[in-house]
């Protein structure tokens, strides 16, 4: 437990596999922000709460199906988030009641289903790739830092930052372009 308390993702994943009794809370503290944030963009703030709840409940119930060999726990959780959101949207689409339309208008109108699905794909892959690539991409495109600033921030050679940026972007573009 002391290992997992250090906040190290790998240690949390091991504790998860072992079914340690307070690991759900640790996992929640570590990834709820990401899950909730992604859900917000896909279904709006109110339903994001429900999606977040559903994600962690199904993750807990299905925890024995997580195989650390197949990827990091964060990627697995974002995968569950993606499927939960898809289910959620399917249910919503089946309902054509005005109430549903009203709920929809609360979603940031710019986020179409296709956009939020792609965003989920991107974040799932970033969780899979891990750091420093994930950090580099987020610093570049979310925090809008220059490659040089990122290199300084992460104490990495500029060339490494550029290489990681280009390779990771290429990988993400391929993902969005293919298999859809």
């Amino acid at each position, binding site marked *: 437990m002391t290992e997992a308390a250090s906040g190290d993702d790998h240690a949390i994943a091991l504790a998860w596999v072992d079914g340690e009794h307070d690991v759900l809370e640790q996992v929640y503290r570590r990834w709820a922000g990401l899950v909730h944030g992604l859900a917000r963009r896909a279904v709006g703030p109110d339903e994001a709460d429900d999606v977040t709840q559903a994600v*962690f409940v199904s993750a807990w119930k299905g925890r024995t199906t997580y195989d650390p060999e197949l990827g990091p726990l964060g990627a697995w959780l974002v995968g569950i988030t993606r499927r939960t959101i898809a289910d959620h949207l399917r249910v919503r689409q089946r309902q054509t009641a005005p109430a549903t339309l009203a709920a929809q208008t609360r979603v940031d109108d710019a986020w179409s*289903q*296709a956009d939020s699905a792609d965003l989920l794909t991107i974040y799932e892959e970033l969780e899979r790739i891990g750091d420093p690539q994930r950090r580099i991409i987020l610093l570049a495109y979310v925090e809008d830092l220059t490659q040089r600033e990122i290199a300084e921030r992460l104490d990495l050679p500029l060339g490494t930052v550029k290489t990681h940026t280009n390779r990771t972007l290429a990988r993400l*573009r391929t993902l969005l372009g293919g298999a859809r």
Partner: protein
Amino acid sequence: MTDDRAADRRPTDDPGPDRVEALLRRAGSVESAPPDHVWASIRAEVDSSVPEISGEPASLRPRGPRPARWPLLAAAAVGALVAWVGTAVLGGVSEDEVVVADATLEDLPEAGAAIEGTAEVVTVDGERRLRLQLAERPDAGEGYLEVWLLRPDVSGMVTVGVISGTEAEFALPDGVDVSEYPVVDISREQLDGDPTHGGRSVVRGELSEASAGPHGPPPRD
């Protein structure tokens, strides 16, 4: 979403060179902490898939956080890790007492101390009895210790009685199928008039069906 196609001007099969960047920029900082009630609901929902013995429906909308239930869930998860040792014997036993199932009991993290013990279901003159022996008495706090038989998934439970020392023997109600409720559980209960499991399990072990085997306990004489 009726306006999907209109809003999504760029077809997804042509992501364009900068779609990744554009989406990341537009999303901005994605992380958003869910409100506190979300965690409370997760706990409650995970717990409500556990025991609903008090007549409460297994509701998806709990009335609020029910922290008391959480340790029971935790205990269920831990209980699954306990190694079951016991096997019992059918042959070579005395005529008036037969061990039909037994279990080793192990403490759960909530107990705070290592307490081990054994549980046996014996038939004495045709009556089934659950016999418990603990290495030491678990801390009952300000309440008392109650003995239960649980389903392995904690979806149901039967109360057996109160244990006050390190040894106890209870008559098992007729009709209680030990193979359906094989988990022996001792919980810490408050003197609050609530007859349901308080969610604080301190010792637990699973009875295994009686079957003669090389690792079984010696025949009882």
